[in-house]
């Protein structure tokens, strides 16, 4: 009985091992024949190429591993920005599609149908070259609010120069911890005495007051560094100082969020429509206000339907960010699987690392979303 159960499993395992063994042996033989060596030692060598945009300090004198980190962080950055904006746009559009106002729900429907039916790569090219065509040259730009400069060479924003930044961060952490305590306290109070505490206003208050205290008593000091225009040649200009967001990042994030938002909007619509009408009517009949109906009855049930498919969209967005190479945004594929691969010629090593990296990124997002999904699932008692 036991052997009957185990035998097929063992055979399957054996076949899988044989297949992998065959492919790695084959690759080994072919590489040997062509005089290609295999190894990950190159990661510590000097990379000798520069990258236009990096979150950590990097130039060509750093190692290939550092270049890998630069690419990875840029991928994470554009994915996080994309996920945040896609979620916001998606929720708004999803709810707008359910609106009773004809104009609003038609506009939302047209947006969804339009953006989800055009290939993403085309959209990326469109936004990038549209941005390049539409944005002014550095010398022609009008400052936004006096300090922000949107130009063809990038979005130049003021940077904060901090003194005692660590104290400020501690004050933020303290604020967040106290908010968690307030929420626990408020829930207990409601369960025991039935009295509601205004958690939201207390939280906002804490988030403002504690950092202000750090300025007053913690010696924290911030000054603003405003970008200044700089002449490069008779007709060429750029901005110096502040933070520069390259147009590649902006158009990629824009394209990714507008595209993915259409799918999220449909998830949201499906989720809200999935809650039966009787639930809303019952909630209204026990005297809940419309806001409370949405917050306490509809959303908790809708979220259970929304979260799993939305997780897929987050994963898609992260993987789609690899199209960045087409428009010169230095993500993992462009920096590591592009330039680094070309300069070292180590295709198998670099592609394997890149694949593992995307796999880990996707699994991390899945784990996070599954945890959240479990948290909001019905707890059967």
């Amino acid at each position, binding site marked *: 009985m036991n052997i009957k159960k185990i035998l097929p499993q063992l055979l399957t395992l054996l076949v899988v091992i044989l297949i992998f063994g065959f492919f790695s042996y084959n690759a080994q033989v072919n590489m040997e024949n062509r005089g290609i060596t295999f190894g990950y030692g190159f990661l510590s060598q000097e990379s000798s190429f520069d990258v*236009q945009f990096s979150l950590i300090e990097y130039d060509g004198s750093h190692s290939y591993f550092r270049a890998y980190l630069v690419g990875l962080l840029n991928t994470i950055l554009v994915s996080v920005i994309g996920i945040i904006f896609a979620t916001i746009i998606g929720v708004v559009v999803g709810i707008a599609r359910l609106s009773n106002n004809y104009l609003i729900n038609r506009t939302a429907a047209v947006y969804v149908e339009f953006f989800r039916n055009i290939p993403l790569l085309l959209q990326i090219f469109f936004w990038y070259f549209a941005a390049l065509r539409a944005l002014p*040259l550095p010398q022609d730009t009008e400052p936004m609010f006096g300090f922000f400069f949107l130009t063809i060479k990038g979005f130049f924003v003021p940077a904060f120069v901090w003194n005692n930044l660590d104290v400020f961060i501690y004050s933020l952490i303290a604020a967040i911890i106290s908010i968690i305590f307030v929420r626990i306290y408020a829930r207990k109070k409601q369960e025991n005495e039935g009295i509601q505490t205004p958690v939201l206003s207390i939280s906002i208050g804490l988030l403002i007051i504690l950092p202000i205290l750090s300025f007053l008593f913690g010696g924290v000091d911030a000054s603003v560094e405003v970008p200044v225009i*700089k002449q490069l040649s008779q007709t*060429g200009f*750029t901005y110096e100082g502040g933070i520069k967001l390259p147009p590649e990042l902006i158009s990629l994030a824009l394209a990714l969020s507008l595209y993915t938002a259409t799918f999220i909007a449909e998830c949201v619509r499906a989720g809200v429509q999935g809650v039966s009408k009787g639930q809303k009517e019952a909630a209204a009949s026990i005297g809940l206000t419309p806001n409370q109906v949405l917050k306490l009855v509809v959303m908790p049930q809708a979220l259970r339907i929304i979260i799993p498919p939305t997780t897929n969209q987050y994963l898609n967005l992260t993987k789609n960010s690899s199209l960045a190479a087409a*428009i010169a945004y230095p993500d993992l594929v462009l920096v590591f699987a592009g330039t680094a691969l070309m300069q070292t010629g180590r*295709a198998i090593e670099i592609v394997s690392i890149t694949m593992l990296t995307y796999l880990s990124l996707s699994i991390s997002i899945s784990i996070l979303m599954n945890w959240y999904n479990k948290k909001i699932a019905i707890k059967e008692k």
Partner: protein
Amino acid sequence: MFKYLKQLTSLVAMVAVLFTFTTETMAAKKSKTLKNTQKKGFVRCGVSQGLPGFSNADAAGNWTGVDVDVCRAVAAAVLGDANKVKFTPLSAKERFTALTSNEIDILSRNTTWTLSRDADIGLTFVGVNFYDGQGFMVRKNSGYSSVNDFKNGISACTNLGTTTELNMRDFFNSKGISYEPVTFEKADEVVAAYDAGRCDTYTTDKSGLAAQRIKLSSPDDHIVLPETISKEPLGPVVRQGDSVWEDIVRWSLNVMIEAEEYGVNSANADSMKTSDNPAVKRLVGAEGELGAALGLDNDWSLRIIKQVGNYGESYKRNIADTGILPDRGPNELWTKGGILYVPPAR
């Protein structure tokens, strides 16, 4: 007596046929690539995705360019027809993998010969068909007249995965200038971004700059700065480990250059068979057994010259007459002040 003579000639002919057959099969046996190419009936050639003058397809899908002509020459030598080539357009990123993984047999794609590429990644460079160097293109109205005018914060557009990226860093570092590299996977996007004003300068091989300049919205508003910041010997590449194939590609290129040196061209090649110069006669297959050494027949070089032309004809047709680089510069024969100098075909 007459009867015997006839038998004797047929015997000689048979032996000759047998002999050439065995030498041919021996070379073919040694070269897997040659055997496969003859079996398939076409040469598999990797080219660029469109670089006028070097490898560029017209609307009808006909490829032209000096890089294309190297593959055509090999096809003429090996298969007898310069048109029996299958071209595969490759990005800078894909090119070496395509060659080492057996997708193509010759990579003739404005590729710079460097030590690490030659020695490290399973490739062998067979020669140089264009001596180039990296330069910078800028807008005329910028007032830049030399790379020494560049200032901190300049942004430079270029192609991903090229020696250009490395040279650019070496150059700006040595000048102590901070710069912003904007690297695209395809040349068309580089041109579009530079044209729109995303970058202050566009840097790549000077021949590439001259060719891409034509694609800009108003080519006359742009100039290529005089400085050359690197050596870029461009040439065809083959897989490591097939020395017969390597020799065939190398000597197909060399024959084109040597033909120009001796004044043999597509028009006069046939009449050169009766030349007084033994070097010329060897070149058109009227003397010597040069083809056999490569596992080919003796007319291989004649076919190259007749069907593709000599190097000068190829250069004139693809690069000079198209207005890309009318001046041959270093790509002139050594006898005329250039550095084109190939070993003798003998």
